[in-house]
């Protein structure tokens, strides 16, 4: 299920909201856990036993690590065992879904196929076969929990239902954010639910829905068929347009899904960490990564980069640079164990490594637009690898961008209607910090005239209702496209 799927919007969400408001404080967590189990199991029911097994094993492991505190060797052994098990489960499904379609063909019809939501008779390809919903996010949350318990940054959770709720909470199961136990443990038992909070959460949900359905999914009508061609034989301008369109589609797809997640979290009284901060305005790749998928990059920083760095305890410049490249290679492979994701990660790592060796300092002294062009160029070219079905495909696409002759006459881009071009224009506009600028503009106006503030707020809500209606119409007209990051 997705946060913008019709069955969620029309059935599970209204039922859950109503029951949540009617239920007493005591039953709210049970209700949310039940809703999360339904959400997870919908259409992929075999994901449920896998997740419950992971939760049980890690719940026990956390308590065991806590009991062994003070005994350095056994505590570390318990941590390593549990983390290795989690990584093995993740790697198993990543290999199965992303890298071994032949294996998938052979398991069709068997019980294992149910895990992957394979329909009988469906011929799987890497694009069609999805890993269990939320697995990559769940595993990373579990590892952060175990490491934090080991380092005594947090104590283990003593109530299994609360631990299960932390892991499975449905707003964040689709595409994150990756929430650490210590960020949310207090909220599991004590959270404020106010009318203002609920209203703000619903507003954010609608904004996220509109980003996903009215912007990303409209751009998808250009990008998906274009990347579906067997070879990207486009004219140079069209190849550029395609990569730019994909960069915008991916951002609005992911950030929209995260807005929906954070908004729903807020409706139920949770505060999840932010995952984006207008990434495309960054002036270098390092800054881009402080603005893009923040909960993943800080996870790698805290649980891989810092441990690697602090064990060396000596200033070794080369080793630090190698660690940076390694971290981004791993970040790439988190998305899938394919050469394309590896190359995508290496591009980020090498760029950031060069930036830390004085390039960023030099760049900072240059003309500001040049800094933006450099960042967008590196990030944009890396998206070509991220989106293409193979390395050869990505290289051919980049070849067409720089004007290398194609092996066939240039093909036209798929024909699309005006709505797609309007979505692209809106995407360019809203990739800029427009919201912050508007807030800055009307805050003094609101202060000066309370009556104007009421009108402004009413107008905003009418606009949001229009966006909700537009999103519903677009979903009905163009169908449901899962969130891109739900496939990782």
């Amino acid at each position, binding site marked *: 299920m997705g946060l913008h799927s019709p069955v969620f919007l029309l059935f599970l969400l209204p039922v859950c909201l109503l029951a949540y408001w009617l239920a007493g404080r005591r039953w709210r967590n049970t209700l949310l856990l039940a809703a999360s189990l339904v959400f997870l199991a919908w259409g992929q029911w075999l994901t449920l036993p896998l997740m419950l097994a992971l939760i049980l094993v890690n719940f026990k492991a956390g308590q065991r690590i806590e009991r062994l505190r003070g005994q350095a060797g056994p505590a570390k052994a318990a941590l390593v065992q549990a983390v290795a098990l989690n990584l093995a489960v993740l790697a198993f499904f990543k290999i199965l879904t992303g890298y071994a379609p032949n294996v998938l063909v052979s398991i069709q019809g068997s019980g294992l196929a149910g895990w992957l939501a394979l329909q009988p008779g469906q011929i799987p390809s890497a694009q069609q076969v999805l890993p269990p919903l939320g697995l990559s996010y769940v595993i990373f949350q579990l590892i952060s929990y175990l490491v934090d318990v080991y*380092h*005594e*940054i947090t104590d283990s959770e003593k109530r299994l239902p609360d631990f299960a709720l932390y892991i499975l909470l449905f707003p964040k199961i689709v595409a994150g954010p990756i929430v650490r136990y210590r960020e949310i443990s207090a909220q599991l038992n004590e959270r404020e639910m106010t009318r203002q909070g609920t209203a703000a959460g619903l507003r954010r949900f609608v904004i996220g829905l509109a980003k996903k359905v009215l912007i990303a999914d409209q751009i998808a009508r250009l990008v998906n068929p274009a990347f579906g061609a067997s070879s990207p034989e486009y004219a140079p301008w069209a190849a550029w347009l395609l990569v730019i369109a994909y960069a915008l589609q991916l951002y609005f797809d992911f950030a929209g899904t995260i807005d929906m997640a954070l908004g729903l979290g807020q409706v139920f009284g949770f505060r999840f960490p932010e995952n984006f901060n207008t990434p495309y305005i960054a002036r270098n790749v*390092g800054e881009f990564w*402080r603005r893009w998928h923040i909960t993943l990059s800080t996870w790698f*920083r*805290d649980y891989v*980069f*810092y*441990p690697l*760095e*602090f064990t060396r*305890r*000596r*200033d070794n410049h080369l080793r*630090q640079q190698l660690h*940076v490249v390694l971290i981004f290679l791993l970040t790439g492979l988190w998305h899938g164990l394919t050469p394309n994701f590896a190359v995508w990660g290496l591009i980020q790592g090498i760029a950031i490594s060069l930036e*830390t060796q004085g390039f960023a*300092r030099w760049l900072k002294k240059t003309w500001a637009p040049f800094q933006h062009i450099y960042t967008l160029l590196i990030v944009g070219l890396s998206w070509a690898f991220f989106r293409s079905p193979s390395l050869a495909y990505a290289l051919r696409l980049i070849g067409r961008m720089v004007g290398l002759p194609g092996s066939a006459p240039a093909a036209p881009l798929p024909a699309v209607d005006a709505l797609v071009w309007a979505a692209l224009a809106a995407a360019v506009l809203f990739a800029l910090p427009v919201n912050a600028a508007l807030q800055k503009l009307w805050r003094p106006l609101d202060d000066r005239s309370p009556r104007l503030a009421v009108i402004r707020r009413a107008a905003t809500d009418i606009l949001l209702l229009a966006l909700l209606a537009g999103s519903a119409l677009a979903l009905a007209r163009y169908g449901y496209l899962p969130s891109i990051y739900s496939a990782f």
Partner: protein
Amino acid sequence: MPSIMETLTDVFRQVFDDPGIALEPETTADDVEGWDSLSHVNLIMAVENRFDVRFTPKEVFGFHNVGDLARCLESKLG
């Protein structure tokens, strides 16, 4: 003998190669040019070497500003 803040300021100036850095307890990574994940590691190690102490991961995770760092040093050296 220089205070902890004075010695910290000296370490910061060396790590970030900026003699103009002036530290307050409220100073965070946002206030110091070039204070990112990489230089953070170098900074923590430089502080450890200068004060001859070792921070635990729990302590490092707890540093949200210069004041946290100074208080932790104070309790370690005290």
